[in-house]
């Protein structure tokens, strides 16, 4: 995945860096929680589709939009802290605690990704009516690219595979050409389920391989 330095000391530095980055992903909790959030987002879109019909329905849909925005904003702000708490309970006692140096580049990438998804969706809807069917494909490509980049950054192959799943889910949903709420529900539901499943399997394996410490 990475070009290996020929110098043994450089290799040792690169290896140490990769091992510490991989440590964050070895329990699968981050995927499990992000996957669960995506499933919740999918349920909101599904509820909007089911309840948002008619005049009264449009009010329900507007309220659901607000609740969804609130959930996503809260998840963005508290997500990492929430994952940290879960790790504190289940991971650190088994495999140790690591505090990572804050990387501005990662925050920039996440911010740019969010901005790109929003701008692209608006541009597609505004400028090319009918092109909104391709929003899931474009969003899948962006999320897939992000997951592949994370997989490469941390040397975790399953994240790159999940990136492929994101791209495939986006394309498949776009080709189905569903109404917008159903299409968003199908995309986030499928990707969320894949992430949550991968996270659960990884966590189960982690719990088996790293048993809890014995009581003193």
């Amino acid at each position, binding site marked *: 995945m990475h070009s290996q330095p020929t110098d043994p000391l450089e290799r040792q530095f690169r290896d*140490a860096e990769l091992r*510490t980055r991989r440590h964050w992903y070895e329990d699968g909790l981050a995927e499990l929680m992000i996957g669960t959030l995506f499933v919740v987002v999918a349920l909101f879109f599904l509820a909007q589709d089911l309840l948002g019909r008619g005049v009264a329905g449009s009010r329900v849909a507007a309220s659901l939009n607000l609740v969804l925005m609130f959930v996503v904003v809260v998840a963005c702000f508290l997500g990492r802290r929430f994952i940290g708490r879960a790790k504190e309970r289940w991971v650190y006692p088994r495999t*140790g605690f690591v*505090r990572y140096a804050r990387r501005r580049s990662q925050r920039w990438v996440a911010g740019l990704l969010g901005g790109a998804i929003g701008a692209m969706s608006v541009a597609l809807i505004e400028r090319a009516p009918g092109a909104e069917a391709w929003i899931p494909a474009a969003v899948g490509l962006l999320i897939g690219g992000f997951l592949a980049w994370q997989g490469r950054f941390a040397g975790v192959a399953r994240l790159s595979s999940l990136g492929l799943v994101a791209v495939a889910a986006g394309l498949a949903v776009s080709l189905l050409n569903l109404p917008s709420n159903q299409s968003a529900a199908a995309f986030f539901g499928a990707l969320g389920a894949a992430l949550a499943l991968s996270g659960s399997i990884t966590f189960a394996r982690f719990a088996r391989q790293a048993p809890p410490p014995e009581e003193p």
Partner: protein
Amino acid sequence: MTQPPIDRLLHEPARLTIATLLYAVESADFLFLLRESGLSKGNLSSHLSRLEAAGYVAIEKTYRGKTPMTICRLTMEGREALRRYRDQLKRVVAALPD
């Protein structure tokens, strides 16, 4: 021009492993270093003490909930020493005849 001597403290493989692991993070606890370095508890403890005595590593004993934790961090001096060691070794290797 004569080269400054290689840092013997970091030249020892186990201590170099500990230092490179800590170089990649802000801080890590004893359990993480134990798992990743593959050293025994006693060995890791004694190497950490030597690195701490040299001012390369700062060790803090704390609690996370009710669990005692030993948090280790490479000091600025330790980071600088490791960078110096890396450069020195590169120069030594580059100066070797083909």
